[in-house]
Structure formats: C-alpha cells, structure tokens
C-alpha cells in the first residue's frame, strides 16, 4: 500500500535537451494555468483572509490557549506513526525510524499483515519500540481508534506520516477502469488522507511537544498529466494541494506547534509501481529513476528527523528524487547506458 512514484513516469524525455532548468516541480509547466483560475483563487483567498478576522474571534481562543500552554521542545526519541506501513515504503520507513531509535506505530487495513509486520520488527528491534493496529484510513472510526490507540500506548505522536495510498494495482485508461478501483483509489488517497490529517491535527494541537505531519505525494502531484493512472494522479495532486491549504489554515489560526509537510519518495520499486510495468516507456523510467524502498527510506528518515530535532517551524517539501538527480540519471542512461535492465528487462 505504499504510495510511491513521483513526477516522472511520463517524462517528456524527448524535450530534455531543450530544457535547461532542472527542477521537476517548478511551475514552469503550469504557467498556462496562471490565468484566470489562479486569479480567481487569489480572490477567494483574500476573501478567506478577510473572513478569518470573523473566524478567529469565536474559534481560536481555544486553539491559542492550547497552543501556548506549556510547550516543550521536541527531543529524540520521537514517536512516529506511519499509515499503510506493513509493506513497501511505509515498512521501510518504519524500519529506518526504529534503527534511529524511535518508537514506531504501524497500521494497515489487514490485521494479519499488521501482526506479521509487528512480529518481524519486534524480532529485529526489540519488544518495546513497535506497536501495531488495524486501521482502514477510509473509515473515520478506524482513524479515531488509531488516535486513541496511539495515545494509550505512546501518549503522544511527534511525527505522523500519511503513507497509505493506493492505485488499486491497475494501470489502464480511465475508460476501462472499474468502479471499485476508482472509488478505492480516491477514497484511500484523498478521503483517507484528509481524515487522517484532521485527526492528526486535532491530536497534536493538544500535545505539549506539538507535532509534524508528513503527506506522501506521488506521480501527478506537480500537476503533470498521468495517463493510464489518471485517478491516482488526480488524488496525489489533491494531496499536495491539501497540504498547502492546511499550512495556510494553520497559519491563519496561529497554530504554531503543528506543521504539515510534503514528502516525496520519488519512484520506489514497490508493488504499486511495479504493477504498472507494461509499456516500454514505463520500463525505461523505472529502470532509470526508481530505487528500492530501503534506499529511499535511508535518505528520507534522517531528513524527516532533522526537522523536529532542529525545532524548525517552517513547512518543508522533502524530495528524494530531485529534478537534478532525475535529469542526471536520465542523462547517464542515455549517454553511457547506465542502469539498463536494472529491475526489469527492457524490450
């Protein structure tokens, strides 16, 4: 259930030579859309800002009181909660956090998988650091239970990673996609994540140590088209947008102790990505750009941990596969044939 793949599935690789700028998510490709809608959004956000004055008076005293009450610095070890973490990148992240000495709470839709994952992690890292429970993020009750489980076992959560994501393991044009797949993709990636974010913020606002929420993005989150997995791309785009809106919302409400970040693992060789290997282009980019979950987690976890450790109050966007990296990898492939047939046999 790990949400992976970033940006580059359908890289405009013919155009590479003509592009001199090395930032995958720079909005250059979206310049077009900066016309009307964005202006209109501008309007709406100004209205929203104005309305905030009205909003603040009834609502935020409670918030403020909570936020200013005896704050504590966030010191390691951290309590980490990762959704959808019995396999793929979620599992790799959990392992990496455990290696760094943190406490980890894992969850997923299936009881058996949680049980198995907890067992194997406990064998490796000891009894008292790993907890696990069943949680279907699409179900609000489950998420609430997850929060109470976390409060019961760990008292507080410092880092909440919204990793659960799905593409229903199907890669085909929207016309051929089935109802169940589409609904599963949207409800897991968007609805589930929204509910998780809401519950996480609700929980963390009351915590003296505050908290950090990380939302995992995926292909399409920079606004580039994702043919063959259109629904997935749309949901991932909405994830990034939700993060942005939440950051603005928390700023408006003067909530300083909860931060929402984006986390981009790039392309990871999990089931989610590998189920889509059926075109030549896909094979090419997976070979060139994808990395195993362990490699990605090794890079991401120190970066994630450095945020609370430094007491940073700025929302961040941590990327594994940066534009520079992606382009240089593609270049070395094209120039020297590096990484050919790395995971999958091409043609």
């Amino acid at each position, binding site marked *: 259930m790990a949400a992976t793949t970033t940006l580059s599935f*359908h890289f405009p690789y013919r155009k590479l030579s003509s592009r001199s700028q090395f930032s995958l998510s720079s909005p250059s490709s*979206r310049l077009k*859309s900066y*016309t*009307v*809608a*964005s*202006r*209109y*959004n501008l*309007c*709406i*956000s*100004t*209205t*929203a*800002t*104005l*309305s905030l*004055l*009205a*909003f603040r008076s009834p*609502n935020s005293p409670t918030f403020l009181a909570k936020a200013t009450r005896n704050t504590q610095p966030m010191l390691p070890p951290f309590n980490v909660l990762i959704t959808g973490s019995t396999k793929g990148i979620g599992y790799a992240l959990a392992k990496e956090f455990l290696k760094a000495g943190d406490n980890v709470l894992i969850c997923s839709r299936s009881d058996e998988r949680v049980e198995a994952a907890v067992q194997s992690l406990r064998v490796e890292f000891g009894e008292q650091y790993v907890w696990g429970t069943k949680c279907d993020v699409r179900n*609000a009750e489950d998420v609430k239970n997850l929060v109470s489980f976390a409060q019961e076992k760990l008292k507080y959560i410092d880092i909440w990673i919204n990793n659960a994501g799905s593409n229903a393991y199907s890669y085909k044009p*929207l*016309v051929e*996609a089935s109802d169940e797949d*589409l*609904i599963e993709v*949207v409800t897991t990636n*968007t*609805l589930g994540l*929204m*509910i998780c974010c*809401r519950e996480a*913020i*609700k929980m963390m606002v009351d915590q003296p140590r505050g908290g950090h929420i990380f939302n995992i993005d995926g292909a*399409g989150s920079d*606004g580039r*088209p*994702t*043919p063959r*997995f*259109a629904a997935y*791309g*749309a*949901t*991932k*785009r*909405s*994830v990034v*947008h*939700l993060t*942005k*809106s*939440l950051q*603005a*919302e928390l*700023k*408006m409400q003067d909530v300083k102790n909860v931060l929402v970040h984006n986390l981009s693992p790039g392309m990871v060789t999990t089931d989610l990505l590998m189920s889509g290997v059926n075109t030549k282009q896909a094979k090419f980019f997976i070979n060139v750009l994808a990395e195993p979950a362990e490699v990605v987690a090794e890079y991401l976890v120190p970066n994630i941990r450095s945020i609370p450790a430094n007491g940073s109050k700025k929302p961040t966007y941590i990327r594994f596969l940066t534009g520079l990296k992606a382009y240089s990898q593609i270049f070395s492939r094209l120039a020297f044939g590096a990484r050919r047939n790395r995971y999958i046999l091409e043609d």
Partner: protein
Amino acid sequence: MAAVVKLHVFPDSLNRPKTRFFRRGFGSCPSPGVLGFGHDCDRFSVRECRAFRTEDGGDAKEKKSRNLKKSEVNSKRESGFWSSLQSILLRNFMVGSKSDDEYRQAVVKVEGLLSSIAIQIGRYIVTMMSTGVILSIGFQMSGGDSQMDALIWYSWLGGVIIGTMIGANMVLEEHCRAGPRNVVITGSTRGLGKALAREFLLSGDRVIVTSRSLESVQATVKELEENLKEGIANSVGSSLTKLSHAKVVGIACDVCEPHDVQRLAAFAVKELGYVDIWINNAGTNKGFRPLLQFSDEDIKQIVSTNLVGSILCTREAMRVMRNQANAGHIFNMDGAGSGGSSTPLTAVYGSTKCGLRQLQGSLLKECKRSKVGVHTASPGMVLTDLLLSGSTVQNRQMFNIICELPETVARTLVPRMRVVKGTGKAINYLTPPRILLALVTAWLRRGRWFDDQGRALYAAEADRLRNWAEDRARFSFTDAMEMYTENTWLSVFSLSVVCAFIILSSTGNNMPGT
C-alpha cells in the same frame, strides 16, 4: 450572408486602386526589400493583393465546406439554394404538363429566392455606396494631397478587412450555433447547473437534468418546461423553429454511485440517442471553516461528489461518446483551488478541484486520438448556495465586487460551450478583462448584491428570470467580443501593425533630407 458576398467581390475591386497607389507611393522607395517582397514595386503590390485574396477566398471556402457539413448533419432540413433553383427551372422547362397548383408553389419559391438575392444585392450596394461616400468625403477633405489619399485608402482597406473578418466570424458562429445539441448536466436542479440547463434549453437544445433527489429533478423539469413555453410564446421566426426541438427530461442520479451514473448514461442514450455535451457540474462545499470543524460525513460527501463523482461521470460519458458517431465534449467545472493556490477554510473542496485539474491533463493525453473532447469550464464566483452557505458579512462584501448571478454566467458560458471544438479548451467566465473591469469598478459595485449587514439585495430567481427574459434579446458587447477566437484578434492586431508600418515607411520616404 452579406459578408460572404462582399468577400467574393471586393478583392477584385481592390486590385486596381491598390496597384496604382503602391506604384505611386513606393516609386521612390530605396529599399523595398525591407518588407521581404521582391525588388519590383509592381510585383510587390500584386503579391500583396493576391495574399489578401487567398486569405479571403480560403475563408469563404472554409465557410462553404462548413455549411455543407452542417447541412449534412442537420439531415438536410433545408434544401440547398442551388438545388432548389435547379429543380424549379427543370420543372418549368422540362415538364410542361404540371398542374397549376404546383407551378404556383414553384413560383412562390422562386420569388422567395429572388427576393432574398435582391436583399443581398441591395445590402451590398448600400455598403459599397456608404464606403464610397466616406471615401469621397475623405478625398475632398484631403484636398488632393497624395499622402493623405494613400492614408485614406489604407484605412479604408483596413476597415474593410476587419469588417469582413468580424462578419465572417459572425456568420460562422451562427452556423455553429445551429442544430440542437444533446446536453447532460449533473447537479442541475440548483444554482449554476440550473441556469446552464435553462440557457441550453432556450438555445434550442435537448437537456437532461439530474440531481440526487427525484422530487427536485421533477420540479426543475417542470419549471424549465414552463420557461421553454414562455420562450416559445415570446419568440418569432427562426428562433421559434430553433426552440421547436428543445426538450428537457430529468432523472435522479447520485454522481458518486456508479450504478446511478450508468443509469444516467443509459437514460441519456435512450432519450436523446447520443450526447454532444456532458457537463460535470455537481459539486459541493459545505461552508467555509477550518478542516478540524468538518465532520466525517461532510468530508466524505465533498470528496465523493467532487472527485469520485466527476471521475465516474467522465468515464461514463467517455464510454457513451466512444460508441456514438459524432464527437462529444465533456466539461469539468473548475473551482477555487484549480490553479494550485492554497484554499484555506475550504481545504477539502480546493484540493478536490485541484485534483480535477490534474485529471484533465491526464484525460487529455488518454483521449488524444479519440473524438471525445475534454474541457474545463470555469464559472468564476457565482452567487449560489455553494458559495453563500457559511459565508460571513465580510465575505459578502467581497462578493459584491467579483460575483455574478448564475444566469449571467450561464449566458456567457453556454454559447461557447455549444460551439466548442477539438479538445482541451478552457472556457472561463472570469477572463482578465472582466477581472480588470471588476477591480476598476469595485467602488461602484459595493452595494451590488449585499448591503452592509450582508442581506441579499438581488431579486429572487423567479423575478430575475422575468426581467431577464426581456433582457435576453439585448446584444452584449463583451459577450460578442469573447465569441471571436483569439486568432481573429491577433490577425486584426497584426494587420493594423502592418498597415501602420506601411504608412509610416511611405510617409518617411518623402520627408526631405532622409
């Protein structure tokens, strides 16, 4: 069709005076190569004229082919001009033993045709005479100054070209507007959806309205039928024949239920045969407040209506359109957040709309070679329940400036949705000129919809419609401007630049000392 007639004729009449003038004006031209034409000034002028002619001829040809296509599509409702004339002549000369009755009918037909031809010729003569009068006045005023004469000719030429282009565009649009479209609009029992449905209906289209509740669908269908009846009662001539094809039917459909959407598609095919335009308008917001204050049910409804609903409806529409003979167009509605900027207090709504914009890109790639067009329509800010629920007094003060009534927005969007071609078009209400206008006139707009206490000042829907029915006939300049493609304006602009360049260079040459 006046424009068409003009098109064919004026380049010939243009040829002579222009040649003369180029000879005169450029006789002493030291470097005509600057313009990228040949050395010879004669050649230059001739080429120039040819260029104009081909352009206009191309236009006319295109138009003709369009007309032909249109008439085929309309299942040959109107027999062509030439065929009818031919048949009459044949009847007259070949078959002498026809009954008087038929003969009289034929004569009436011919009379009608001849009178229409006479009207066209009359229009043409009037146009040419009036331009001639203007020209001669100009010459009188210039007093024989050759430079001034040249200037007048150029400006006349520019005017004629711009006029014909605008005229040709109008004729084109008129043809594109013809023929009933089959339209499906989701979430169309309230707000913008209803206004869109009404506008389509009054344009003579067949419309399917849907919403979650059967009662409101039935009520809306009834109301729209009333509107249609009124429209028929008030209309005359061509608009009456246009409206005779219009109809409205409805079915209950919850867009986030796959089975409902499939039923809607089947219903559309059964009722209309095929679908030209499918508008995914259903959307919900549930008020302005921080995410923490949204209940589970609220979030679920917003996501499933906006995102799941649009995806399912788009897929179903694509399935319907793939199996039909003619092209179809799908519109997804933009909203706050589509552009990617953050939408605090409507985080859920904003992120679903942002996701939809990305979906649009993916669909565009997936539908590249099919005849399904995927478009977005952005209504801007509309005074509907979606926007007003949970808005504060301060919000409403802002709404005064930038908001519009749903009918106004629908009036602008619908004509452009009806004539949309290709794929990946964005039809926006709040275009930069409109935003500029709104900001410039912000002071005047303060008490437009809401007063200081946030009470609504605008009329209820029924009253609005009554006033609006009279208003419909009025010509809106901004709408007319929007109708022309960007290319038209671009070519008008570049033509004027070319004219200015020619004038400047020709005047500059005769200056002493240069």
